[in-house]
């Protein structure tokens, strides 16, 4: 786990990861503060508030995982440090796994930071533990999925600009149906099909069902959990396939 440790130290000392965490904490503060102090927003039900806040956590986690992991390989390639790593007797896939774990660790830190906010927002309801557990579950699964697919892309595309753009496109494609589609479009066959195959939609629907509709039992959410789990497994398989062998770019 030498590379993993280096990545974590680098995240702190080069301010790369630290900047993400401080930015995320500032956004959490702003959203939580507005929800609980703005007169109109505070008329929202607490379940709605928690749901909105959970969406913010998940979306920030996804964007962070996408950008961080897609640049983790390509920036090393561009800086010329990756070739030295490839010359060490470590399997290429191990390098990729350690890079992925470091991104997921930053997500976990981000998630841990969000817990005090969730507790404050859930004050006086029975939703605090569910919010913490479900945000943790879905956030971690999606963070792994996005990190693995972004590292695989970074591995193939080899440039930061391209890999970050493609990773952001993936995050946007995943979140678009839930965040941007009108309800009428989501109710069409096409919309329903998209919702059924989209892990992000399952995550949002599940959080809605847990926090707004008070269906907190795991068995009630299993229909939403398994598609996210399958998506994570598919992304991991793609990741393991593509990161087996790396070739430096010559031309």
């Amino acid at each position, binding site marked *: 786990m030498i590379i993993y440790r280096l990545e974590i130290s680098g995240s702190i000392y080069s301010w790369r990861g630290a900047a993400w965490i*401080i930015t995320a*904490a500032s956004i959490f*503060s702003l959203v*939580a*503060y507005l929800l609980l102090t703005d007169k109109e927003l*505070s*008329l*929202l039900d607490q379940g709605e508030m928690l749901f909105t806040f959970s969406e913010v956590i998940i979306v920030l986690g996804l964007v962070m995982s996408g950008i961080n992991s897609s640049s983790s390989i390509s920036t090393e390639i561009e800086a010329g440090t990756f070739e030295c790593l490839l010359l060490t007797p470590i399997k290429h896939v191990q390098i990729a796994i350690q890079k992925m774990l470091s991104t997921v660790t930053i997500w976990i830190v981000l998630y841990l930071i969000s817990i005090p906010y969730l507790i404050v927002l859930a004050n006086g309801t029975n939703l605090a533990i569910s919010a913490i557990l479900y945000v943790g579950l879905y956030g971690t699964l999606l963070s792994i999925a996005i990190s693995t697919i972004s590292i695989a892309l970074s591995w193939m595309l080899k440039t930061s600009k391209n890999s970050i753009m493609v990773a952001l496109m993936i995050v946007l494609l995943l979140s678009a149906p839930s965040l941007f589609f009108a309800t009428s479009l989501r109710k069409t066959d096409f919309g329903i099909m998209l919702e059924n195959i989209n892990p992000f939609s399952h995550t949002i629907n599940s959080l809605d069902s847990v926090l707004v*509709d008070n269906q907190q039992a795991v068995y009630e959410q299993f229909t939403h959990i398994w598609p996210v789990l399958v998506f994570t497994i598919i992304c991991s398989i793609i990741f393991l396939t593509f990161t087996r062998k790396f070739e430096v770019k010559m031309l």
Partner: protein
Amino acid sequence: MKIISNKITLSEKSKGNTIGKRINWSFICVYLLILAIGLSILLFCWSPIPIAFSQLSSPGLNSSFSENALRINISNPSQIIHELVGKYIIVYANLNYLKTDKTSDNSSIGGIAYISIVDIKDRVPVDLEDWSVEKGLYIPSISPGQSLPLEWNVRLVKAGSYTISVLFNENRNPFSSPIVSSRINLEVAPKLNLNPGNVLPVAFGVPAVLIGIFGTLNYLRGRKTGVYK
């Protein structure tokens, strides 16, 4: 004194008038009653009129109203529910199939029972997306004489005044009118979640602590590497 005399005057006036009106109205009411009975007999005895009714409406409608005798009603103990935003209420209802003839094979019927909430102030029906998980309950069959208890968990999303009614659409005839219950009132009081006392320490504290931790770590490292003397 003035008031008393006024009262007396009014009472006398009304006495004379009431007697006169009683006679007139009694006569009109009896006349209308006889006319109504006569027309009813005429309508139901004269064959073309029931045929025309049966052509306009389906046999299902006919049966559901006249023979099936389906009734749906809200069985909450109070006619007015007062609750706070964010709370859950349960709307209880009963679906009764009053027909007692169980001989026919097609006597049991099924359908969908659903809840309708109307915002009185905004004069619009409420989109139940966030209000209730089960908007409609599918009832595969209800036999004659059977009574089905139904319930809806409703989350009170927005403050305001509402009416709640439940409806039943039987599935044998797609053109039949739904059976509607009587309404009850729902008064949802707003709840302010203003809670700056709790959020302020977290909102300002967490970023400050994080900046402190990362700053200290980098400062200590700077001291070690000679960046900060």
